[in-house]
């Protein structure tokens, strides 16, 4: 997938159609759409004549409880900003975006929903097919590890296979990371047979072979509001400086693009200041002390 180009007019029409609508009028699915079921499937991001240097980007959105507001904001405005700012700022070329709806692997009927990798307006159409189950299990975590496992085992991306360039994977939510992926969940959700459960550190090792992995903590989420230090501590123990604190959920797209820019070697302060007004403040807060590390510079010898 990913064989077409983004068209701003397409997006304007799509975004305009959301004006005045309630969330449930935009996200109308009342169950997992079969096309978004991750069971036994592989998602491909392939180069094409119109996207010759494709780069895979996965955005996993928590859709439990009140977190549906994130998907809603993306469908109304954020997705357009995300693609258009990537095309304008070029942290990577030819973005192919795959969106995920993240639920709870213990309790939800749809713990993970996945679109295709798309480069054009079809990503918006598929985003709106996600079922906002609004579940979650009353535990302290959601299935943020499910996109990690899926990306590691069920995606094939030309940016990595042909050019050795890792894709990007962002998960977004307000709760803590789970402890592990249970083998029985891998079987039920993906149809895979694992000999044992996999810890988050192990999953991160797997997915980091092909993707730069970030997590965005939504500080406005109800769980994060109550337990923010605990949430941040657990995520930072896993991802270190690649934990991004989002204090205005409507600015998710800008934060994602900025993190990619910094990861590709641009100066953090310059990136934050490139946004106007309040967005600049939100981005600076999110980037924290994320270091500018150009992957091209990761060559030869690393001295500790």
């Amino acid at each position, binding site marked *: 997938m990913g064989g077409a180009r983004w068209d701003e007019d397409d997006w304007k029409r799509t975004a305009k159609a959301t004006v005045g609508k309630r969330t449930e009028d935009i996200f109308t699915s009342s169950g997992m759409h079969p096309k978004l079921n991750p069971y036994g499937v592989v998602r491909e991001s392939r180069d094409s004549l119109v996207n010759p240097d494709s780069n895979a980007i996965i955005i996993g959105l928590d859709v439990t409880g009140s977190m549906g507001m994130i998907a809603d904001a993306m469908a109304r405005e954020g997705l357009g900003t995300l693609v258009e700012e990537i095309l304008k700022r070029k942290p990577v070329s030819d973005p192919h975006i795959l969106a995920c709806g993240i639920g709870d692997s213990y309790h939800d009927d749809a713990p993970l929903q996945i679109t295709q990798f798309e480069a054009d307006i079809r990503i918006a159409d598929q985003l709106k097919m996600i079922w906002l189950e609004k579940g979650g299990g009353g535990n302290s975590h959601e299935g943020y590890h499910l996109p990690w496992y899926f990306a590691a085992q069920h995606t094939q991306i030309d940016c990595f296979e042909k050019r050795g360039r890792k894709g990007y994977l962002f998960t977004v939510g307000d709760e803590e990371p789970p402890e592990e992926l249970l083998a029985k969940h891998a079987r039920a959700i993906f149809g895979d047979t694992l000999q044992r459960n*996999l810890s988050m550190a192990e999953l991160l090792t797997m997915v980091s072979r092909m993707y730069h992995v970030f997590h965005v903590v939504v500080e406005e989420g109800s769980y994060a509001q109550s337990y923010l230090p605990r949430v941040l501590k657990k995520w930072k123990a896993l991802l270190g400086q690649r934990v991004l604190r989002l204090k205005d959920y409507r600015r998710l797209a800008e934060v994602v693009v900025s993190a990619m820019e910094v990861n590709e070697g641009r100066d953090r302060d310059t990136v934050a200041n490139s946004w106007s007004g309040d967005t600049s403040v939100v981005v600076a807060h999110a980037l924290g002390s994320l270091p500018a590390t150009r992957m091209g510079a990761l060559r030869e010898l690393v001295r500790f």
Partner: protein
Amino acid sequence: MVTDLSNLSAASLLAIPEHSPERLFGGGADDIKKAFRLLAMKWHPDRNSEAGAHRVFQHIKCLYEKSAERLEARGGGVLQLAAVDGKHYEINYLRCHRFELGSMYVAGTVAAFVIDLAHADLVEAAERMIRKLDYADDRMRQQIAPHLPASPFAGAFRTAHAWVIVMRKRPDQLLLRDVLEHLGGRLHPRHVAWVVSSLLNLCCYFQHAGIAHNALSLDTCFLSPPDHSVAVLGGWWYAARLGERMTAAPASTIEWAPHGLLDRKRADIRTDLELVRAIGRALLGDIGGSRLERDGAAPQAMIDWLRLPASSSPIDEYRTWRTQVLHDSFGARRFAELPLTQSDIYAVDPR
């Protein structure tokens, strides 16, 4: 190497990664040049008006240049070194490889590492580490020592610009990188199986010795086809005692080691175990691992094991590998002959 070049589609040409030019261009300089000319006749934008021909041509050109560069580095020669104590040394080498600290010269009975003086601390650490390698008993020594550098080294001296470490090796011990390149970028899974077995066995020893090597790779390991064994001669500059702070690591280690290594900076046997898996995937032609299944590169059980993360116990890893993965992949054990010698790899170059 691909043989029927004129029938290759744009997509299949573009699918050849830049780091595996040998999948398109193999053989000697003349073969490579001839293949490039043939492809250029078809894909040069002046001759091909298809949309995308320019991009395909650029990709072919890039692969050709990388092949030519590799060929350039292939040629053997005589390495002449003047030590600071006035002595002179000569090594007839078969192939030279640049690596992150300097150059490695692969010869018949030695491998010589010429390391920039700026990395003297790493050289000293390697010498210390290798000198202190010990064994539980003679049986373990007999089984393991032939696959590790002998101490003292065959030679260790300083020149005006570099440290030179010369390690003994047998002529049948071939650098993994050279073997892989010679075989067109992919080994038969049965051979990958014994390479992985041999490396896991060494990891069990590393844990016994309380160390992590930290740099197992195609550029530090030598395989012996008649023995079905692997010797780890290079990369000892990064070895450290388990739990102790690491001084440095090559980028390949950072790339494939367990996530968080950079944060902890502590030697951990899981690094070696992950690197063994990366070597297995690389020998099957896809170090990232995402194409293995699609390419049918190996039996499913083997692919699954190579793609999943390592546990923290070399003994458990070795046991699972031998009793489950190999059995599920190949059934009963049998010796798979790899008819490959030093002269096959280093003497066939027509230049």
